[in-house]
Structures are given as C-alpha cells and as structure tokens.
C-alpha cells in the first residue's frame, strides 16, 4: 500500500498510552486510578469539600474485607472528573450537593452515622437527580477502579473465551465489566 498524505501526529492518546505503561508497571495498584482520572493538574474541590466527598463516598462504599472508596481513590478520581469532565452547570450542582451533604450532618463514623446516611440516601434517591448522578459516579469510579474491579469484584482484560453457563456459588463475585 502506497501511503500518500498520511501524517499521524504523536498525540495526547499516544503519550498517555506510553505513560500508562510506565505507571502501571511501577506503582501500587490503588494509585493508578486517581493518577489517570485526574490527568490535568488543576483541581476542583477545595480541601474541605474533598474531605466531605471522601467521607461520604466511604460511607457509601466502606472498607470491609476489601478496599473501600477511599482506598480505591474515588475522591481524587471524582475531583479529577469535576476538573476535566464536568460542565460548569454540573460543577455547580455537585458543589451545592456537597454542601447539602455536609449540612445534613451525615459525615462521621459509627453505626448511628451510617443509619443517618441511609435515611439521607433514601430521601435523596427518589427526589434528586443530582444526587442520583453523584451516587452513580461514586459507584462507577469505585467499581471501575483497579481495586474495585479486581479485588471487590472480578475483571478479566482478555477473557479469551465465552462460557455462557458457569455455576454460581455463595461466594461468587460479579464481573465488573
């Protein structure tokens, strides 16, 4: 094939791909997700807001026998999404939501706090699309992080086969994707 006029520039994707190979090979598992979710240097949430995001994400997905939201880098990843993905409108909505979460007094540890958070969540889910989107993103960033996908759930980059019917046991974990 004679190629005339083809001039692929070395672009950001190619650079990122190179960077991923370097980072993926050298860093501990949990550090990868935030490193790539937040490719920009800028941040969105203030340290105080980020602390609220982190505590609430951990309430939704706490550390158990497997990593929790904080272990998986969910707060940093969400901050990265706010800086690199979200529109101004969504940024404002999420900032206001973080304020409401703080005002609801659900941040903290202990069974009573979890109970309070559960009631807060139950009230928000049917009423507030911004909250639903926030929760969806928290789940996405957790279950598609490397710890969430490979320790809490299961993920195979290259399954190699399709097995349409395998048995389920009491400890069978779902596929992350």
């Amino acid at each position, binding site marked *: *094939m*004679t*190629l*005339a*006029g*083809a*001039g*692929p520039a070395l672009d950001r*994707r190619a650079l990122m*791909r190179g960077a*991923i190979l370097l980072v*993926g090979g050298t860093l501990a598992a949990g550090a990868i*997700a935030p490193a*790539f*979710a937040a*490719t920009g240097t800028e941040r969105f949430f203030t340290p105080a807001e980020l602390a609220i995001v982190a505590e609430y994400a951990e*309430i*939704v*997905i*706490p550390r*158990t026998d497997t990593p929790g939201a904080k272990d998986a880098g969910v707060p940093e990843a969400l901050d990265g*999404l706010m800086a*690199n*993905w*979200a*529109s*101004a409108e*969504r940024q404002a909505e999420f900032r206001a939501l973080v304020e409401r979460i703080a005002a609801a007094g659900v941040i903290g540890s202990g069974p009573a706090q*979890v109970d309070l958070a*559960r009631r807060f*969540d*139950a009230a928000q*889910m049917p009423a507030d699309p911004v909250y*639903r989107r926030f*929760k*969806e993103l928290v*789940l996405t960033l957790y279950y598609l*992080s490397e710890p969430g*996908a490979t320790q*809490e*759930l299961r*993920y*195979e*980059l*290259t*399954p*190699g*086969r*399709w*097995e*349409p*019917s*395998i*048995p*389920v046991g009491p400890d*069978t974990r*779902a*596929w*992350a*994707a």
Partner: protein
Amino acid sequence: MFDAIVVGSGMSGGWAAKELTEKGLKTLVIERGGHVEHGADYLDALPPWELENFGMVPEDEAAEHYAIQRQCYAFTTATKQFWVKDSEHPYTVADGKPFMWIRGYHLGGRSIMWARQSYRLSPLDFESNAKDGHGSDWPIRYEDMAPWYDHVETFAGISGSQEGLPQLPDGQFLPPMAMTDPEKDFRTKLEAAYPTRRLIIGRCAHLTESRPQHRALGRAPCQYRSVCERGCSYGAYFSSLSATLPAARKTGNLTVVTDAIVHSVVHDPKTGKASGVRVIDAKTNEGRTYEAKVVFLCASAIPTAQIMLNSKSEAFPNGIANRSDAVGRYLVDHISGMGASGTYPGFEDRYHRGRRPNGFYIPRYRNVTEPGEGYTRGYGFQGGVTRDNWRRGSWQTGVGAEFKAGLRAPGPWRISLSGFGEMLPRPENRVTLHPTRVDKWGIPLVHIDCGLGDSDRRMVEQVGVDAREMLELAGCTDISVRQHYGGAGLGIHEMGTAHMGKDPARSVLNQYNQAHDVPNLFVTDGACMASSGCQNPSLSYMAMSARGAHYAAEFLKEGRI
C-alpha cells in the same frame, strides 16, 4: 492514470479495493479523513481504570463538538477519534425533521466502529418493491447475490448458525457463539407461544475460529473482550483495516491517499464517461485531479449522493448520472429505538464468563408468517439476556457494608429487545445540496429532509407492543417499554440515495451497480440499495461491492467501458 479509483475506504470501499486489485487493476483509494494504523492506533488494550475520564467525554466538549455523534452508544474517550466533529462537518436538515447523521472520517471509516451484525437480505427483500409498489423494482434477485454473499462471508468471517429460514438465508458461517441459559429458555417459550417466530444467535463478523484465509492476514480469534468499537488489535472482527485493505495491499496494486476530499466526479463529454475525480486536500485546501478508467463511489450513502449532485456539467446539470432525478432521493434508515427490557426470572445458580460481543436475533415475522396492520414490510429484534452487575446500584437506595455486599453478587438476569424496522423507500426523503452554504473546503453542505411516513409510523407502534408481549409471556418483571421512534439517522443504516433499478428514467444504477447514464461509474455503498430490508446492511454492501468490482473488471477487459 489509475485503472480504478475507489472513493471511500470503509465497508464498501475496502471490498471494492480488494476485489479490483486482486483482478490486477491498479487502484487508488481516496479517503477524506486521516490515516489509522491497524493496532497501533487502537485503545483496546486499556482496562476501564486507565481510560481517560473513565471513558466519559468532557461534557462541554461533547456538547460543542459532538452534538450528534455523542448520541451514539459507542462514543467514548476510547473511540472519540473515530467520530467526526460535528462542529467541523456541518449539514442542514428540514425544519422540524432532525436527522442524526453518525459518521467517522478516517481510513477504514465506520468499518472500525460498526456493530458487526451480519445478515443476508432474502428473496422476499429483493421482491418487496415489485410486490407492494414502493420504490423501484430491484434489477437483481437473491439468486444474483447469493454467490457473492458466500464469497464475502468466507473471507470476512461471519459466525452464525444454519437455520433454514426463508426470510433470513443461511450462509458460509464460522461456528456460532453460544446462548446463555435464559436465552435458550426464552427461545423455547417464544417459539412455543408463536410457532412461526424464531430466536437465533446473532450472526456477527467475528472469528470464532481463525481459518487459513484469516491467518494469512494475521487475524486471530475473538478474545471476548467486547471493546470492539475501539478497534481490535487481534483483527478478530472484520474491518477494512483488519482484512480488505491488507489483502489489497498484498497485490502490489493498491495506492491509498488520505486527507483527500472528493469534490466531484469529472465527466468527459467526448467519451460520455467519467475521467476521474476532483479532490481537495483536507489540510491545505489545494485542489487536484486523479484520473482512472473506472470510478467507484463508496463514500457511504449521503456523501456519495453529495459528490454526484456536486458533479455538474453541461451533460449533467443536476449532477452526474442523474437524468432520473433519483440521486439523493429514496433515503432510508432502519427504524430503531423501540424495544423493551425487563428482569428475566430464575437461573440464579448460573452465570457467564467472558464478554460476548453479540446477542440473539429474532428474524422478521410480520408480513412473512404473521400479518402487519397497515404496513407491508417488517422488523426484527436484536437482544440478549445476561446478568446485571454493580450498575444496578445506581438506582437502588442504600449505603454501607450491606449495600456493598449486595452489589458484590451477580444481579438478576436482564433481558433487552431492540427492534429494527424497514422504512419504505419514498422519493420525498432526500439529500440535496444546500443552495448557499459551503463547508470549509468550499463544498456545498448536505441538506437532509427525511422522516417517517404513515406506514412507518404504524410499524413503530407495533414494535413496542410485540416487545412487551414477548417479555410478558416469558414471565419477565420490571418491564419497561420503549414505544417511540429513536429518530432518523440513529439506525446508522443510511441507504438508497443512488438506487438500483430496471428503468433508467426512474433509477440511478443498473443490475451491475453501474450508472445508467455513465458506463464507467459504479456505486456499491449503501446508496445503491433499492430497499433496505430490516437486516443490518453491511454484509450486503460487502457483497454488492465485490459483485460490482467483478463486473467492472469484466467490462474493462472486454473493452465495454
């Protein structure tokens, strides 16, 4: 001077190039977009956590530059480079008649991002226009196409099962992919309740095994990753980049030029033939001309019509090979968006492993074995039954360890059905050139005027009704029905704008995909289709391109063109 010029490098252009070069013709493929290197330019090796923004394209960027493309399910940060920037490639539509034109301008075209479902049209489909009087009678019948379907299936690699259905002919298939247990259960219940409806595994352009003709091109079997729309470094699904262009390159007869936008076809009034094409360099805006003995338009249905309409001369004041005024008319897309989903009961003790890039298919039954009320064509359903994952948590209440533990287990089996219906070919659904506006290369913008007719609308209503009934008979719960049309264009199956027909006064192409008015001009992309069937059309474009190339080479050899 080339023997042949092929405009476009996607599904159709790749096939035309392969066949023409293998017949010894020095062939130039002209691609308006940039080069894509098979493998090196794909992001298919990345796990979800390494995707930019976890796959989500920044909202402002999507709104500003990809207002149309972002409506496609396959639009992510891992595929963004394969979709046009709508902001750079504008078109206009008739008032109140949106048309979502989903497209990619790069080497390989949409053969990289396509959904890979591969079905033959049937004898019924090639007879439909003649029988109900809509559109032009096809100048060919299924028997004319069958050997070419055999030919392209064998080379491309289509997996599927032999079923013996008259409305969906069997072919040269690789082994079928397997169904899940609930899919088999649904098939049993469906076929018991409706004895003439059938549920089969999807026929898809994936190598379930790699045969010598595939291995010769370095194509490996499917790895069941289901990241196909990013491009597949294994070459496990068919694309121009994995299969046809490499085969064409092996002949030594292929030249490819990228970033070259075809402005028009040059008509030589002395010979009555096309002498070549005018091209505008996408980067420098400089014009140049390429010459050849035969020209194939494979730019996809809408751009092929645009090029023809823009090829004005004294002989053809309304565009080349357009004495019929049919160029641009009879635009159809598959009617999509309707369907249903629900929770499938039982089978809690079974799960699946791997990500099957395929589902099941319920071939058309309306106006085949069951009547359709107020419409003459029909529709099929694509679907699947697989187990839910953590995503179900997004609409569940709950937080904490218990919530987390609940999402660790596989969720219930979920079924989905998506209908794809045949739109009637009607002359008023058409592509024209905008009278005043031009793009940044000075080419008149495309203006699209396309919508449903009464018959199409009656079909839309029935699709949702049928989908609900089929889920109810299987005992599904939480059923949600998508009753409404998704919108023109979103079937991503545009076709018909330079259709084949017997009558040169009413149609553009003859039975060889050769323009009635210009003997060395061939059109083998979706534009050539006189009707669409309800099946995914790419396999037909492949077969049509191989067949058209065969006749073009014969005619050249015989000195007829």
